């Protein structure tokens, strides 16, 4: 169930996410033209970039080599902040980051650390720099590309500074260049203009690419807004809206044209926007094609857009804007031509260059594998002492690099490039900041206030003594915790799932030598003493409890113990988990400050991956890295592992490589059943591949079918076509319903007989067939219903049914116990109930009060019906749309009935076991609630007394019973205990049928029954009977 809750939460998140962008949209459009004057420009729509920049600025600040540009930008930013009130939050953030910087700077430890870092890299960098400067060829290429559009920007040139300033997007890369350690090298690696042009657009790219996802739904505006926000929020919500509003037509000549092959990177630096339906390519295919050749595809037109790719002028927003901005149109054929043209030209260029630069040579062949092999051979040859033959400097340097890598190769990249300072952490900077603040203020907040006495009860948000980091795997939670504590000079003690974390021995004096938990206890309780002696020298400690959601079977009582530890702890505790909504952590959550880590965006990740690839001497395309980032769904660790693996076999990583490699081994995505159903039933549901459908319906094999069953009626199948009378749709519905019913049978086989090999069949008939039949637009059937998929109603109804059956069974056993009737439960419900109800309620409605009450109580006594049975009978006779059977019964009569029943209870013969109160077994709580809900009885004080009497009725009557039965009371209890060794199910049955049978035994049988009481079904019942 906890999972369900999670999905609901997610859905809310989504809604919230969707709601916000709407506000955003109100903001004015991005700057129309490049304005040359520096300070004025920032439009709110660029806000996310600012946010980004502030985050990055932290990093640049971190190093002494802060460029002048940075400060410029900052001023500018603050100006902008003053100008636009809406950006208050951003300013705050910026301020925060300033604070952070202040905090960081004075710390010597980190500084030293950083210096080490630089030393470390120094050699490597100098080597890497050399290739940077040399390749004139690259520049040449860039230039050749630039001919068409003049997009190339050399960031290195100060002349361009102005240019960058006026376009906010471009200022960002300038900051990137200032980015400390990676500065010179990073740029160098990217080298010449072409690549640089791309870098410059990176952040902007971030927004637009995300929008591109969104653009699949026509609600582009919302998409854009969301994109803006998401910069800070990660891509959790993503482009998976609840609905796909419409469907793009199929390309008219789909698959008829041959897709040309071109030179590598022939589209580098170009930005495309695709609009409308293309002639032969699907939208995704076109995107792929462009990305493969190094181009960028964005979702909306800006002045940086090179071409609008469209085959027909649909006159939409995009084309209008393109005309406005003067962006040239390009048809699909034009694109093909462009690619085709580049091919020979590139080839010659490549040939020319191959002499001078083997690096170039590595770049030119893209796909043809023989060439690749050749190249690799080539490398190997060079490796094997053939360097002398190659006069080329770059080659040498590359080989050196490779040697370098081999030296350090024993280290996994994930370890090697684990962030060393907080600013290296990709994404989630605000979380890092929060954690930092929390750790920093911990001492004052808790240690000192505790000394003062009751300071613990401070009500502010920081008052939690522990912190819980949560988020999907591989996004750097543990790293964050470690790095931040390191930065603050705290000694981090990590305890993870590999340690036993069971409940600590209650006697801590048993020693530290015992279990880990003992030592934890030791640790947290003694910490004060440690640095009480010599405060200055001893490092303070912080406890990192990793993988707390993994505390399970082996670690009995682990969470409870952890909470206890938090309460008494004298050091900060950082807990880390993946699933914050896990049932196990429910109690822990209350004691922790919750920090939810989100997946970094693919741009953030792509950037980092590029840096690493550069350091490792791996040539990687920017969009290849982003693709990788996307494929692993934000898991940096996994991305790095993939990258390292790929580096073993190739030294150039291209877009296509990533696509091919990860096509098979994509990371499983965690999608909610609602999303899965949306996809299956969506307008494009018919296009999914079979394995995709199976994956979707298997994402939760329990809930997906239920949600489908609940909602399939609502869909208007788009495969039906014209269907005036609705006959076809009805046919489809019947088919779908039949299939769902089949699935139920298969499920019985699976669950009852453990035939799990049938699960594919179950998923086919429960989800895929109905979805295949019914997918289309959703429509509402009831007025006022929201047009979203409902949660399956079956679960709720099922549990209500079971509850009612239980109640009915109680009544049934009472009736049997009265020895007046002999019937089974079904008969009771089907035949008796109508008459019983009449006998119970009709007198109350028609006859005078006292007489009626007397008659009803008499009747109830005859069948030994209790007050609850009365309620059960009334409850079971209620049908929606029919009048309530209790209508017309005066509240006064009702309470009189209760009173009368209660009075009679002292003299009543008790025939059924459960009418006796066994202490601690039955709490008539629900009755009390019912009494409180009764509005009529609360109005008058007199009746109020009655109401409470009704509420207490069970207690008191039971108490009386107890008195009456006092001597025999202990025995049934004993029997119940002795029965316990049997299985639960059996015991349940014992209870019901046992009562029945014993109650029916003739008195003669009683002695016999008690003789076998220990074992026989309900010996206890017989004795309880009086």
């Amino acid at each position, binding site marked *: 169930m906890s999972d369900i809750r999670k999905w609901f939460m997610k859905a809310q998140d989504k809604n919230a996410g969707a709601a916000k962008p709407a506000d955003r949209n109100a903001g004015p459009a991005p700057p129309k033209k490049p304005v040359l004057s520096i300070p004025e420009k920032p439009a709110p729509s660029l806000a996310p970039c600012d946010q980004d920049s502030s985050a990055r600025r932290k990093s640049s600040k971190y190093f002494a080599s802060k460029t002048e540009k940075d400060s410029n930008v900052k001023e500018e930013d603050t100006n902008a902040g003053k100008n636009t009130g809406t950006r208050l939050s951003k300013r705050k953030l910026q301020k925060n980051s300033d604070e952070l910087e202040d905090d960081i700077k004075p710390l010597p430890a980190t500084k030293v650390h950083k210096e080490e870092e630089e030393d470390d890299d120094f050699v490597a960098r100098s080597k890497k720099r050399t290739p940077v400067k040399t390749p004139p060829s690259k520049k040449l290429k860039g230039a050749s590309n630039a001919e068409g559009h003049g997009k190339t920007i050399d960031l290195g040139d100060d002349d361009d500074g102005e240019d960058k300033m006026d376009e906010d997007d471009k200022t960002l890369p300038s900051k990137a260049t200032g980015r400390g350690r990676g500065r010179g090298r990073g740029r160098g690696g990217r080298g010449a203009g072409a690549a640089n042009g791309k870098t410059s657009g990176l952040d902007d790219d971030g927004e637009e690419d995300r929008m591109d996802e969104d653009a699949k739904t026509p609600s582009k505006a919302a998409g854009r807004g969301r994109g803006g926000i998401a910069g800070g929020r990660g891509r959790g919500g993503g482009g998976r809206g609840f609905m796909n509003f419409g469907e793009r037509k199929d390309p008219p000549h789909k698959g008829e044209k041959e897709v040309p092959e071109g030179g590598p990177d022939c589209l580098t630096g170009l930005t495309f926007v695709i609009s409308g339906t293309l002639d032969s390519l699907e939208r995704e295919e076109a995107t792929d094609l462009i990305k493969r050749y190094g181009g960028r595809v964005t979702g909306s037109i800006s002045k940086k857009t090179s071409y609008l790719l469209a085959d027909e002028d649909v006159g939409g927003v995009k084309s209008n804007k393109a005309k406005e901005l003067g962006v040239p149109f390009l048809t699909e054929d034009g694109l093909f031509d462009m690619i085709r043209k580049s091919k020979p030209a590139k080839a010659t260029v490549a040939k020319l260059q191959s002499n001078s630069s083997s690096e170039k040579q590595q770049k030119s062949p893209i796909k043809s594998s023989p060439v690749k092999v050749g190249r690799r051979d080539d490398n190997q040859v060079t490796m094997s002492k053939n360097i002398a033959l190659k006069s080329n400097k770059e080659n040498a340097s590359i080989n050196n690099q490779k040697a370098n890598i081999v030296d350090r190769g024993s280290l996994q990249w994930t370890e090697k490039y684990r962030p060393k300072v907080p600013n290296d952490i990709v994404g989630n900077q605000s979380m890092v900041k929060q954690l930092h603040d929390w750790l920093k203020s911990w001492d004052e907040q808790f240690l000192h206030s505790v000394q003062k006495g009751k300071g613990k009860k401070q009500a502010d948000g920081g008052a939690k003594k522990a912190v819980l980091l949560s988020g999907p795997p591989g996004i750097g939670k543990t790293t964050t915790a470690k790095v931040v504590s390191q930065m603050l000079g705290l000694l981090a003690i990590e305890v993870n799932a590999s340690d036993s974390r069971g409940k600590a021995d209650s006697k801590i004096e048993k020693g530290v030598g015992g279990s880990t938990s003992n030592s934890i206890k030791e640790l947290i309780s003694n910490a004060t003493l440690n640095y009480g002696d010599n405060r200055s020298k001893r490092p303070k400690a912080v406890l990192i409890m990793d993988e707390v959601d993994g505390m399970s079977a082996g670690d009995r009582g682990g969470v409870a113990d952890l909470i206890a530890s938090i309460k008494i702890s004298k050091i900060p505790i950082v807990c880390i988990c993946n699933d914050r909504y896990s049932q196990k952590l429910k109690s822990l959550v209350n004691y922790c400050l919750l920090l939810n880590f989100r997946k970094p965006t693919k741009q953030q990740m792509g950037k980092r991956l590029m840096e690493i690839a550069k350091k490792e001497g791996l040539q990687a395309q920017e969009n290849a890295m982003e693709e990788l980032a996307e494929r692993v769904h934000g898991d940096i660790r996994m991305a790095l592992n993939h990258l390292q693996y790929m580096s073993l076999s190739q030294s150039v990583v291209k877009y296509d490589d990533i696509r091919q490699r990860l096509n098979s081994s994509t990371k499983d995505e965690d999608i909610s059943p609602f999303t899965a159903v949306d996809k299956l039933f969506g307008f494009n549901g018919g296009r999914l591949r079979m394995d995709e459908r199976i994956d979707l319906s298997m994402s939760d094999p329990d809930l997906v079918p239920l949600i489908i*069953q609940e909602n399939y*009626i609502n869909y208007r199948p788009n495969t039906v076509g014209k269907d005036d*009378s*609705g*006959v076809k749709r*009805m*046919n489809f*519905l*019947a088919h*779908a*319903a*039949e299939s*769902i*019913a*089949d699935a*139920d*049978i298969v499920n019985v086989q699976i669950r*009852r007989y453990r035939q799990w090999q049938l699960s594919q069949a179950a998923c086919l008939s429960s989800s895929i067939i109905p979805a295949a039949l019914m997918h289309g637009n959703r429509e509402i*059937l009831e007025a006022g219903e929201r047009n979203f998929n409902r949660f399956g*109603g079956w679960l709720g*109804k099922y549990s*209500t*049914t079971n509850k*009612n059956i239980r109640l009915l069974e109680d009544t049934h056993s009472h009736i049997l116990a009265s020895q007046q009737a*002999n*019937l*089974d*439960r*079904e008969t009771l*419900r*089907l*035949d*008796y109930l*109508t*008459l*019983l109800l*009449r*006998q119970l309620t*009709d007198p109350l409605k028609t006859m005078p009060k006292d007489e009626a009450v007397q008659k009803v109580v008499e009747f109830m006594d005859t*069948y030994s019906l209790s007050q609850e049975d009365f309620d059960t009978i009334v409850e079971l*006779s*209620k*049908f*929606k749309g*029919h009048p309530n059977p209790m209508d017309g019964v005066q509240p006064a009569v009702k309470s009189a009935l209760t009173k009368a029943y209660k009075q009679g209870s002292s003299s009543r013969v008790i025939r059924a076991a459960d009418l006796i109160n066994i202490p601690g077994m039955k709490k008539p709580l629900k009755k009390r609630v019912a009494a409180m809900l009764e509005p009529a009885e609360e109005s008058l004080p007199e009746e109020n007394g009655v109401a409470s009497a009704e509420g207490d009725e069970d207690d008191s009557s039971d108490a009386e019973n107890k008195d009456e039965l006092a001597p025999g009371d202990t025995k049934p209890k004993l029997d119940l205990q002795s029965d316990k060794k*049997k*299985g639960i199910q*059996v015991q349940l*049955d014992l209870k019901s*049928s046992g009562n*029945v049978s014993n109650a*029916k*035994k*003739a008195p*003669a*049988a009683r002695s016999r029954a008690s*003789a*076998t009481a220990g*074992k*026989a079904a309900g010996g206890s019942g017989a004795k309880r009977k009086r």
Partner: protein
Amino acid sequence: MLWVDKYRPKTLDKVTVHDQVAQNLRKLVKMENKTWKIDTGTRTLELELVMLSSAHHVEMNPSDAGFQDRYVVQEVIKEMAKNRPIDAKGKRAFKVLVLNEVDKLSREAQHSLRRTMEKYSASCRLILCCNSSSKVTEAVRSRCLNVRVNAPSEDQIVQVLEFIGKKENLVLPAGFAARIATQSNRNLRRAILFFETCKVQQYPFTSNQVAPPLDWEQYVCEIAADIMKEQSPKRLYAVRQKFYELLVNCIPPQSILKKLLAELLKKLDSDLKHEICHWAAHYEHKMRLGSKAIFHLEAFVAKFMSIYKEFLVSTFG
């Protein structure tokens, strides 16, 4: 006390309806060393007498345990059967175990039952009761003495009703008892219950008085009317809610389907009757195989709607 219970025969001698069967049973009781299986067409009053006539018995309803009934049979029943009670005289020392609703036992439970029946027959007698022997496996059936108790004929029911009327000093209008007998569908218990309901509703009886329908039957009738009136997804959705309402109120899905079919057949064109019956049987079968009754009920209604709509469109255009 309800009349059904008030006028229930307390001994075999007083059985009025199935006196032939009762005679035989009485003889049988004297021998009393057989496993009986009592198979009633429709459960009627007489059935229970038989059980009552044996003084020392334990009655249980193992099928209540759902799909885990096997364990009840394996553990509880076996446990009870195994222990041989000691009689003071040292004679006739056995127990009687009455199992209700044997036809609802799962196949596994029935399989485990048959061994128990044979092995402990010395110390334990089993009386199995069921509504339909077709759902009891051959293996179990062959180990039993089958006693079939037919549903009483309408004449017999009328007799009983008149007997009760005389005892209660009621004046029955002519044809009144016969009408109730017809309405009860040859179920004596229901007939008596109807009779009393009429009494509660109105006395003295009027000549054309009809017993009010049972609450759930009335609801099923409404569903049937809904279905006949409109065949659309919207209506299907509404019907689903009503089905849920019935199920929540503990109405067995089989009864719902049966009643629904009966109601539909009343109004249906005779061309379709056969087909609809076929589908009803089809879905009832599936319902027993499956566990989520609502799916099958809904599938039946969807099927019906689809067939009926097609029929309407092809007939009336």
